[in-house]
């Protein structure tokens, strides 16, 4: 436990002192700003006309000025945005050791590699919880500022739970990206694969296999599909496979970088 706590301290220091986690977290806050802006434009037909293509986009996306419509768009954007920021963060936390050539300093040490890796995963999870913890109240504040109608305690509870579930699924399905960052020795491979997966997500959803493609499942949920047992098993298997692959690679693969 002492080793793990030490490594947690180390990983927290690295995250706290780097600009990347702050920039990614702040960048994520653009999502509610964009959603709120579209709703604001849609609410004001004169402004919508004035803004031309932006106004047209708002008319196309929004459709209804209400909290349920706001939550729907927010969840869809969150399913994609949340996936991307966790990918980026995992890629950075694991891949930076290779990019900064510091990996060799954490290999021949008395601290087990499992503790080092666990600390990295936990730090990403805590960072994500903090980001979502800021993101969600910020979304509610933005919705309140443009005075959307139709917010009830039931709706708030239901949508909060739904968002929480999407957030949890997002982090679970992104765990294999730690492995990709490790074998790729940086962030390029995981980011490239993440973009490819977003394309495949859409395809899987269109042909009716969205519930079976792990990375499409949070998106399916954001569109109101229920979470099936099969989907849950697929997500959990993906997460476990990601952790196991990362651990086995760090434990047994040649580290010649």
């Amino acid at each position, binding site marked *: 436990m002492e*080793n793990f706590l030490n*490594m947690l301290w180390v990983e927290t220091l690295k995250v706290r002192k780097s600009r990347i986690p702050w920039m990614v977290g702040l960048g994520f806050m653009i999502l509610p700003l964009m959603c709120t802006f579209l709703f604001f434009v849609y609410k004001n037909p004169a402004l919508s006309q004035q803004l031309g293509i932006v106004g047209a986009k708002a008319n196309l996306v929004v459709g209804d000025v209400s909290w349920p419509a706001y939550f729907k768009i927010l969840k869809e954007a969150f399913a994609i945005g949340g996936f991307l920021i966790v990918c980026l963060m995992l890629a950075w936390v694991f891949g930076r050791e290779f990019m900064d*050539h510091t990996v060799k300093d954490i290999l021949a040490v008395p601290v087990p*590699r499992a503790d080092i890796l666990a600390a990295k995963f936990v730090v990403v999870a805590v960072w994500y919880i903090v980001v979502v913890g800021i993101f969600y109240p910020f979304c509610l504040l933005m919705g309140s500022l443009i005075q959307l109608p139709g917010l009830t305690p039931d709706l708030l509870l239901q949508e909060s739970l739904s968002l929480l579930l999407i957030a949890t699924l997002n982090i679970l399905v992104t765990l294999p990206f730690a492995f990709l960052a490790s074998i790729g020795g940086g962030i390029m491979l995981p980011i490239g694969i993440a973009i490819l997966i977003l394309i495949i997500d859409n395809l899987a959803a269109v042909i009716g296999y969205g519930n079976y493609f792990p990375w499409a499942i949070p998106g399916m949920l954001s569109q109101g599909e229920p979470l099936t047992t099969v989907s849950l098993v697929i997500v959990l298997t993906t997460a476990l496979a990601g952790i196991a692959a990362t651990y086995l690679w760090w434990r*047994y693969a*040649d*580290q010649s970088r």
Partner: protein
Amino acid sequence: MNWNIETHHLGKNFGKVIAVNDLSLKVAEGEIYAFLGLNGAGKTTTIRMLLAMIKPTNGSASVLETEIRMGCRRPWSDVGYSVEIPYAYPELTVQENLEIARRLHPHTSKAQVKRTIEKFGLEEYAQRRAGTLSQGNAQRLGLAKAMLHNPKLLILDEPANGLDPAGIVEVRELLLDMAHNHGVTVLMSSHILAEVSRMADRIGIIHKGNLLQELNAAALEANRQKRLIIRTHDNEKAAVLLESSGLWTDRLPDSSVVCAHPECVNRPDQIAEKLVQAGLPPLHLAVEEENLEEYFLRLVGMKAQ
């Protein structure tokens, strides 16, 4: 004798490339053993195998009497190392980087960070971000990280790289003190041959993955080629005179006569007499010994042929 490093027929192939071949060596407690070799000779690959960073294709290695296996936890609490160019987390300060190294060796006291900063002359840079350090100070930080936890064994890849002359002397004295007064074993690789010859108790010459030769200072002394350098006011005549006596000679670019024949090297007084009798009194007569660099290149060249 306690062997702190032992390898038995150690080998590593990367595909068809043989990086290290059948390497068997032993390094005793308190000894400074230097690996000498050209780039790509297999020095770093050997070091990485000893540190369980890469898996040997053949053979085995033990460090501090522990057989090395991938991902093993022992014996790293007693081993300090620096592989290739030392890097640090660039956005963290020197002190924070050392604090991380301390936490990677959990039984190291907090006070040791301060002591190490002082020992390596890094006080001025303690609060400076590692990414802004000069190459020399980055090297000092790398060595400080390796020695922070007072290891029994140091494995250092090119420890003098990037250091200024004063830094080289400091590191040399530090390593000599650790080895000879505190029983620390040092395995180092270096390109700086003068450094190696000043520090190492034994030298292992590695070339194309093979350990060509292991020698201590006495063996190096015995193996070094010696030659007599002669200058007279007529070097041409002097060369003809020596060759007529069966002593083969060669010429240096400045036309000096060189004779490596044992008779020349062991009895320069007789050669001087001979030259004087022939009316060619020597203006310069000196026995020169091949230095480590020349010896190394000769050895590598001979084997390469």
